[in-house]
């Protein structure tokens, strides 16, 4: 199929490609100069790239969970979003994995994950599950595209399990570190799954809305209904996330650690209270309670994404600032870190835009259980 880029989409593509190029420059810079271009130190070994990876990987898993759950659990309302969600999950995850790769000092030794595995290490399990999970996502997407119902059916069970496993194991990398109160505990892993769902729904809402909005004058009714449905789901998840944060604060209050002071009234308090809680959870919840339209759903989605970025920044970076013998250190991001992060996000949009031209992402994929004798065709009007 010929790809036509005209008008706004051409301009958008050019801008996005420029940002991707800046990201590639950042990556090249890292490979040539080494990690001196990062703000990480011996005291704060993990930098913005880890925040970015966690943020993007969770988002991808969340979209996969929605897509697969709508098939496995029969949410017919979201059925038509399945193919788009799986494609988007790939479009988010692949740049995300590249971001993570940039933080490896010896990327050329990545094969040691296979030849010298440590089954005790959550990071090994994370690598293994994400590796398998990417393949499963590809299989599911190909099955959706070729309308292979049988493969699609089994693949959605496996990707759902894979998404939950990969996400919680990613949380496990942090959850097992006993001396870091912002990381430690099984709740971290569970919250990662919840964050994945929240960011996944937010990302899917934004991309779906703008895909239709930029190509149609009026949003089709089923899309409108689906986005409102997703925002309701988001409302429930936000309420649970608020509960998690409340208990995190309460339990940390009793520890009296510098980590608690850091987020309660210290250096990261504004980012935590203002960014992660107010902007990312409380305001979106009030908006959803107040009015439920697709426009509100999109606005809420943007806020949730910002909020979850702050949440992950506070968790990953803030969790490392408290040092072994009482002192609290600082960390600053660098331009290169930002170039790689923003470049990866731009790459996601580029991959998605190209995908909308090549694949029909609007089609419903799960018709087999429908009662209608003939196959329901949904017009690919959106893209």
């Amino acid at each position, binding site marked *: 199929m010929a790809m036509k880029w005209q008008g706004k989409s051409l301009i958008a593509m050019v801008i996005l490609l420029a940002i991707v190029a800046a990201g590639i420059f950042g990556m090249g810079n890292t490979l040539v100069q080494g990690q001196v271009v990062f703000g990480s130190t011996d005291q704060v*070994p993990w930098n913005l790239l880890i925040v970015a990876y966690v943020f993007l990987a969770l988002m991808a898993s969340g979209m996969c969970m929605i897509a697969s759950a709508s098939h496995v659990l029969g949410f017919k309302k979201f059925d038509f979003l399945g193919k788009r969600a799986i494609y988007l999950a790939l479009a988010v995850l692949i740049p995300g994995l590249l971001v993570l790769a940039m933080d490896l000092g010896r990327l050329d030794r*990545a094969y040691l994950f296979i030849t010298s595995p440590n089954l005790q290490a959550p990071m090994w399990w994370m690598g293994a599950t994400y590796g398998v999970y990417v393949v499963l996502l590809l299989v599911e997407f190909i099955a959706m595209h070729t309308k292979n119902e049988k493969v699609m059916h089994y693949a959605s069970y496996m990707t759902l399990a894979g998404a939950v496993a990969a996400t919680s194991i990613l949380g496990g990398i942090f959850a097992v570190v006993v001396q870091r109160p912002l990381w430690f505990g099984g709740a971290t892993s569970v919250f990662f799954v919840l964050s994945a769902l929240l960011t996944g729904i937010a990302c899917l809402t934004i991309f779906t809305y703008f895909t239709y909005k930029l190509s149609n004058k009026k949003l089709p009714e089923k899309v409108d209904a689906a986005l409102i449905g997703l925002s309701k789901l988001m409302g429930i998840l936000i309420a649970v996330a608020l509960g998690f944060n409340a208990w995190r604060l309460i339990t940390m209050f009793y520890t009296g650690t510098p980590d608690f002071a850091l987020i309660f009234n210290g250096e990261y308090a504004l980012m935590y209270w203002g960014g992660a809680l107010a902007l990312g959870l409380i305001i979106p919840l009030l908006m959803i309670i107040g009015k439920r339209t697709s426009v509100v759903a999109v606005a809420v989605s943007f806020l949730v994404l910002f909020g979850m970025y702050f949440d992950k920044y506070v968790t990953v970076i803030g969790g490392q600032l408290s040092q072994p013998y009482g002192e609290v250190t600082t960390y600053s991001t660098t331009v290169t870190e930002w170039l790689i992060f923003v470049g990866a996000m731009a790459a996601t949009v580029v991959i998605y835009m190209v995908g909308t031209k090549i694949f029909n992402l609007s089609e419903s994929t799960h018709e087999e259980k429908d009662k209608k004798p003939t196959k329901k065709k949904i017009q690919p009007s959106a893209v």
Partner: protein
Amino acid sequence: MAKKNYAMTIDLQKCIGCAGCSVTCKNENNTDTGMNWMHFISNETGTFPNVKYEFMPTLCNHCDNAPCIKACPVTAMYKDENGLTLHDADKCIGCKACMASCPYGVISYNKNNPHEYWNQQEAWSELSATPKEIKDKVGTEVPYYNPERDYNYEAIRYRGIVEKCQLCDHRLARDEQPYCVERCPSEAMYVGDLNDPDDKIHQFLQLEHKTLKDELGTKPKVFYTRSF
């Protein structure tokens, strides 16, 4: 022959706080500026004349339940047959999981190749040689290079991997004490075999002793005796 289980004792009442251990460690292990396998915590409290000064040498605790070993995805951190927690430079992928999980902050990362200073072509003055000229004249990677470290670990590590105290396993292998122990002017430190009932370490451990952050369950093997 029975397996050894090495541990260290540091007598805090003998320690004079000279940080000689930290300096000699750099000599023995060719570590770069800012990278300390052996370091110290110092703490001043109170106001004059009622002041208190504490000094504790710190290094890798070679924990029996080492979080770095559990966190390393590629087994680059491992326990050797003598109970030491060691790092395999050839396996390290530079993911820094060990650093994030170590409760003692004793693992360092090479953001760049170490000792870049000795490649500089600029001299302090026109009368002095450049660092590069000195290096070339001596014919080693750094003028104070210790080739012995090369026995069972990279003599000088390189960009993209972590590094940490190996408890001078190259010296222990020939029944010598680690260099920090050997060079301590007040003989405050000792490394011995916990599995050998005749080892002197058991005498030192008769004294009041503690380990750092043992409440975390890491089972550290650097014992601080006779604290103030």
